[in-house]
């Protein structure tokens, strides 16, 4: 989906954050709890990492941005848990309001309906016997498609032509895996784009390397 998460090339975000040499992984205590809850929510909801990423991408943009990185992890986890019927819609709101001293009734516990899904192995990489469709040096074009579901094809490369640098290990296809529509194992290619093919002739001159799934690519004659 073309959501707020697809940030490559957006303008007007201002200066980058100055690095703090001794920065710890979590700034505040709630971030630690949100991090662990999100990791566990995948198991509790019977889903997977791609579904988790999509659960954040489909947050309303204000929700995506409001509470920073771990805020979106927490809200993504809530999405997974409500989708699988583990918690009711509004359950977290109601519990929070009760903790704040408001007299609200919590919704009843729903009937779980986890997705009909079981991974064929751990992680995302899988062996694939079929030969890769492309080899290093091949010219390829990223398809100009706009899937309404999950995808890892950023908007800024769609329709652009690049060159295959390397064939990476095959992996489950996020676009179907996130929706429990099959692992659809496929080759992944590191593709190089010239910056001026992406951003125009006035752009800085550099090389952009991005890893794209076979389904995102088409040959260039």
């Amino acid at each position, binding site marked *: 989906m073309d959501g707020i998460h697809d940030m490559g*090339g957006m*303008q007007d975000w201002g200066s980058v954050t100055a690095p703090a040499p001794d920065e710890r992984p979590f700034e505040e205590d709630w971030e630690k709890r949100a991090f662990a*809850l999100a990791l566990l929510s995948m198991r509790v909801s019977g889903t997977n990492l791609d579904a988790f990423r999509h659960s*954040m*991408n489909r947050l309303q943009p204000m929700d995506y941005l409001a509470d920073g990185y771990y805020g979106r992890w927490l809200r993504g986890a809530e999405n997974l848990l409500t989708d699988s019927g583990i918690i009711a819609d509004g359950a977290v709101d109601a519990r929070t309001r009760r903790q704040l001293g408001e007299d609200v009734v919590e919704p009843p516990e729903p009937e779980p309906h986890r997705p009909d899904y079981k991974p064929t192995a751990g992680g995302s990489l899988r062996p694939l016997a079929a030969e890769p469709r492309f080899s290093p040096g091949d010219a390829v074009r990223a398809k100009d498609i706009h899937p309404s579901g999950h995808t*890892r094809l950023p908007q800024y490369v769609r329709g652009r032509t690049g060159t295959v640098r390397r064939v990476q290990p095959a992996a489950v296809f996020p676009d179907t895996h996130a929706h429990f529509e099959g692992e659809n194992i496929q080759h992944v290619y590191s593709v190089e784009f010239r910056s001026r093919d992406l951003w125009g002739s006035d752009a800085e001159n550099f090389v952009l390397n991005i890893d794209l799934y076979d389904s995102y690519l088409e040959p260039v004659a």
Partner: protein
Amino acid sequence: MSISERLPISMRTEALESILVERSLVDPKVMDAYIKMYESDVGPLNGAKVVAKAWVDPEFRERLLADGTAAVGELGFKGPQTEHLEVLENTGEVHNVVVCTLCSCYPWAVLGLPPSWYKDPAYRSRIVREPRAVLHEFGLDLGADVEIRVADSVSECRYMILPERPAGTDDLSEEELAALVTRDAMVGIAKVAGPQ
């Protein structure tokens, strides 16, 4: 709903934890173990050891650049978010820098959890469009003849940078070298500085 009407995220987090724990769906001790692992055990020190070893051991360096996953596995570094690792070498001629524009994919097993600047929309949006300007903001000015290569890690491939070994470090031990290596250099927004 405006932001001012939103419930505090710290309270929401507490609320979700209390719902899941009271139904025994989540064990707070397991949560504590996950947190401890990424607060104390897994962090950029792992990557610094990899870099220092590559600087002193040319055969390891070759293995690292050929198959990053296997080479860092020799040091015991593997785990979630590092299923496949490619190590890119920065030199006087080529400078690599890593991002994930779609979320914040990052090689946890060697670098730990990502720092704030890496997760920031300003970095995610701009480094793939104007890397020279962004690196300048970080205090890194590269010569006009240096080729910049930006890796957008949006699949399950993860990237780590092997930075250039700074001058004046010939007499340092592997351990002393590791102490010089920064997280920022292993993502590509800085170089490693020599000993002070």
